[in-house]
């Protein structure tokens, strides 16, 4: 209680207040006031987060318990926040990038009606609140609150323009796919309660490390796998990734914040948070590595043939998330967090840049109708280019450092993983520069009217772009690899206390590769990437890829028909089953049985009714006979 970090509740409190004020006052407040409240709340959180980060950097970590959320039987779930290196870093990313995106939104969403503008900021603040709960929660249940909360906000924001039916369907899809993962997450939590009687990190994780938790290997395997399934939902991995590209129906800043920079990294955060458990389960790590790599590759191939500017970025996000899971699977937890951070910078930058483009194009998202935008939008062009260079992994920019670390970790585990990982990186470079060149280079292919309206976006839009561009450049220097400069990987040192140091084998990435090997790997990958970048740039600047795809390209353009497969394998059978049960079982069989009993009674009474002839004489005769019978029975059966 005496620890100053007890004040950490302020971080989520501000967005919550912002949500309430904007939500309740959306009809009476002016747009600028709404924008100030919305952005100001996040700025306040950011300032507190910076202060917390300083505290943590000074060695002060703390678990603050506020009240008992649930206490039943022997289970106690406190409403607790855990402030340590990992969560403080995520706080910075969420509130920092979040603030920039709020500022961006004040301009981007300005054409909305006032109440919708207020609604938008309310949702956005609620999202930040949920995300903060997710990373600050001191146990799995508080994390789950945030976990479902961000899913809800994602649902609300994807369906923000609720008049369009397909947007609402995309929103539903996102929520339901997330729910599938959530179920697995919940079961993992139940399993933990069952075996350990607790859900708090502070109780479970140290006990697991010392082997006194009561969890055996099977338990750990199942729990980690279930948690991972949860992560595949939230972080859009195979098989639950298809919601993320559809989620681009939401406003572009939402895509930047939720579907690129923060929410989708929740799965990575969760696994890093539970790294003690994961390190004890090599099987799960292998599964994660394979799923992550497969997702990275699959999404990258799909991105090659997409023509919607946001869809390309969406698949690129899925692919990069796959990369992060590859890092987790190879045991390089810090590399994953590192990539989360750099990815947050450059992917937010790219999405916001694409928003700037869409804004200038009057809502057009098809890159085949763009081209040559560089000369109209200077700032957007340069910042977007920086983003592309960063994601491609050009040396000196942030993406290079984090990606390189992941690839090095993969190489340690197996050269095959490295090979596929590198191939995916090349694909990434290719489709990003296809996107860049088609959009910004060449000549303009849109209508005359669009060309007339082309303009650079206002300062509220370009300011976040510039900040993020700077971050995309310098963000990598917190993690300069050991072989380039000794002791410069400050992120490693910072996060070391929360990552379990496991000695056995491949789980540990750095330190086992000699410096010369690392130089060689980095050299090869850099050289290949540069070649691909140059190739894609020159090719698509001159001759944009506007033809309808055929053959294999068509399969890619149609996303390997995965949506169609899910539709045929799950959605339609389920609907059919529903109809079948309702029409063939419920009404005729079960209800039929019930009504049948009623009908039987009805029928038999109709038959018995015939005995009643109405002849009084027959009634009396019957009575007399019955009486005689009763007498007889009394008489003969008495003894």
């Amino acid at each position, binding site marked *: 209680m005496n620890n100053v970090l007890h004040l950490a509740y302020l971080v989520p409190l501000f967005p919550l207040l912002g949500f309430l004020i904007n939500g309740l006052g959306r009809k009476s407040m002016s747009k600028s006031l709404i924008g100030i409240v919305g952005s100001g709340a996040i700025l306040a959180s950011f300032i507190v987060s910076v202060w917390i980060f300083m505290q943590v950097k000074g060695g002060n970590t703390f678990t603050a318990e506020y009240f008992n959320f*649930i206490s039943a039987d022997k289970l106690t779930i406190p409403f607790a926040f855990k402030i340590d290196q990992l969560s403080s870093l995520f706080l910075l990313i969420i509130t920092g990038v979040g603030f920039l995106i709020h500022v961006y939104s004040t301009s981007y969403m300005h054409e909305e009606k006032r109440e919708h503008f207020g609604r938008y900021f309310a949702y956005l603040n609620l999202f930040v609140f949920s995300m903060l709960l997710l990373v600050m929660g001191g146990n799995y249940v508080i994390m789950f609150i945030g976990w479902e909360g961000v899913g809800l906000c994602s649902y609300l924001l994807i369906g923000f323009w609720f008049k369009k039916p397909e947007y609402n369907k995309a929103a539903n899809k996102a929520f339901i796919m997330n*729910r599938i993962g959530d179920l697995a997450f919940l079961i993992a939590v139940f399993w933990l309660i069952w075996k350990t009687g607790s859900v708090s990190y502070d109780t479970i994780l140290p006990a697991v490390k010392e082997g006194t938790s009561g969890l055996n290997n099977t338990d750990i395997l199942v729990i980690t796998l279930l948690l991972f399934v949860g992560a595949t939902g939230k972080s859009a991995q195979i098989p639950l990734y298809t919601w993320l590209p559809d989620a681009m129906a939401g406003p572009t800043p939402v895509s930047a914040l939720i579907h690129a920079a923060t929410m989708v990294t929740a799965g990575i955060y969760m696994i890093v948070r539970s790294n003690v458990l994961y390190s004890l389960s090599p099987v799960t790590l292998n599964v994660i590595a394979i799923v992550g790599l497969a997702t990275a590759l699959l999404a990258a191939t799909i991105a090659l043939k997409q023509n919607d500017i946001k869809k390309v970025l969406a698949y690129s996000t899925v692919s990069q998330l796959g990369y992060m899971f590859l890092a987790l699977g190879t045991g390089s937890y810090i590399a994953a967090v590192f990539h989360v951070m750099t990815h947050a910078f450059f992917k937010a930058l790219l999405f916001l840049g694409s928003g700037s483009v869409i804004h200038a194009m009057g809502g057009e998202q098809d890159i085949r109708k763009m081209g040559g935008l560089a000369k109209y939008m200077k700032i957007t062009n340069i910042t977007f280019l920086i983003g592309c260079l960063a994601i491609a992994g050009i040396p000196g920019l942030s993406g290079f450092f984090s990606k390189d670390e992941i690839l090095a970790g993969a190489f340690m585990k197996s050269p095959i993983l490295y090979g596929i990982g590198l191939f995916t990186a090349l694909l990434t470079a290719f489709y990003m520069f296809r996107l860049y060149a088609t959009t910004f280079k060449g000549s303009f292919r849109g209508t005359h009217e669009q060309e007339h309206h082309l303009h650079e976006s206002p300062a509220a839009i370009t300011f976040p772009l510039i900040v993020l561009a700077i971050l995309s450049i310098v963000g990598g220097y917190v993690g300069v690899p050991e072989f380039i400069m000794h002791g410069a990987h400050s992120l490693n040192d910072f996060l070391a206390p929360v990552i379990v140091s496991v000695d056995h084998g491949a789980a540990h990435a750095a330190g086992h590769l000699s410096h010369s090997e690392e130089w060689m790997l980095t050299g090869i990958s850099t050289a290949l990437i540069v070649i691909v970048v140059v190739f894609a740039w020159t090719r698509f600047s001159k001759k944009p890829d506007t033809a309808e795809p055929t053959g294999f390209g068509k399969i890619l353009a149609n996303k390997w028909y995965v949506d169609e497969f899910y539709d045929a394998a799950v959605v339609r059978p389920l609907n059919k089953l*529903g109809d079948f049960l309702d029409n063939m079982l419920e009404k005729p069989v079960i209800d039929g049985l019930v009504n049948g009993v009623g009908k039987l009674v009805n029928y038999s009474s109709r038959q018995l009714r015939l005995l009643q002839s109405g002849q009084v004489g027959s009634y009396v005769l019957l009575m007399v006979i019955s009486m005689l019978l009763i007498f007889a029975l009394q008489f003969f059966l008495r003894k």
Partner: protein
Amino acid sequence: MIAVLLILIPLLTGLAAFFFRNEKAARSWALFSSVLTLAVSILGLTVLKQAKYLSHQCEWMQGLGSSFSVGLDGMGQILCLLTAVSYPIIFLSTWHSNYKKANNFFALMLLAQAGLMGVFLAMDALLFYFFWELALIPVYFLCSQWGGERRIQVTFKFFIYTFVGSVLMLIGILFVYTHTADHSFAIGSFYKANLPLGSQHWLFWLFFVAFAIKMPIFPLHTWQPDAYEQSPTATTMVLSGIMVKMGVLGLLRWLLPVLPIASYSYGDTVSRLAIIGMIYASIIAIRQDDIKRLIAYSSIAHIGLMCLTIFSENKIGFQGVMVQMFNHGVNIIGLWIMVELIERQFGTRKMSELGGLAQKAPAMVIFFVIISLANIALPLTNAFVGEFLMFTGVFTSTVTKYNILFTVLAGLCIILAAVYTLNMIRKIFFGEANTLTATATDLRLNEKIALGAIVALIIWMGVYPKPMLDLTNEISDSILKITDVQHLLKK
């Protein structure tokens, strides 16, 4: 004193309501009475919570060994509070509904409340049976007089169906009675009844069928969607929000502790039925077009989970069920209010004919979304607390060896619930407005108050459920102690 007042107030005010001639006066009288009951109920939870205020016993049919014995334990507190909270909300939200012979309508509603309170309070088996039937009769008249077009047929089925269950239960009660040591109907004697092991088995089914029909549990559920669909909405709220809890309470108070060994040995069978019912109802709900039927099937799925948890027989589950009984009642009443609003405005409950309401009625959509999210147990809403504890209870159950399988299968309903609930929201509120919904108007003050109260309860119970959980602590322990089969088998 509190316990008696909770029954007497609605009973007397209900009888008095028959004599009102003015519709408005009857309405106000009913609201006044329900608020009074709520005040008494809250008084029992806060100021007068000593045991002497909460229970009462006097002579009733002493010759039979039955006394008028009522008492409020933790579970009773929760359910009486639910009943007391629901009624003002129901009356408020249906303030503008027109009923012919309104005085009779409100009188019957209040009489039903008296019956329900009695069921929740009775600590004597015969008294329990008495109130069980007493609650049914006003509901029968409510449905058959003020219901939809198929009301006669549907109400008749509903009545006969539940009555068959009641009679079976009566047989069970009488049999147990003959085996009590002191020939008494008192609950304590029932718990100590010396029942032959063989008879426990068929007795179990007598009781279970009665409660299962009321809840309802698959495959005894077919009266429910029809009855919900055809009843006037105010009655549907009573039926689904409060009345189904009679069955759940019956399981917890009258079945498990009276027949612990049979409950243990049939636990798996019943759990399987509950799970089949949950999935079955959820899948059917996906394909419903009528909002009332959709909610009815959704309710079957939720109640199935309660049944499953009860037969997991552990404390955390019991606590979850008790909390969830309250939450489910509040949430589903909220949903019915919405249905009533929609039906009164547009004259249809078909989702396919609606759409685009969000533009015209923003307040409505906010309330509806919050209540729907509570219905699918989103964290920080009340149902999450209940469902989380219930699932934990099922998962950590020691009386079955299929605990993991049961949890996973029941968990599928979490996903399916999201599917049908979100589809419902989408079809009613989102998209472009059509000719029917273009003239929609938003909520009025009375509806806002009623829905505001519900949302406040949802958030409160979702963020700080401790007061309610504390209520369930003692009673769960005491039920579990009597039900502890391992202990009994050793003996």
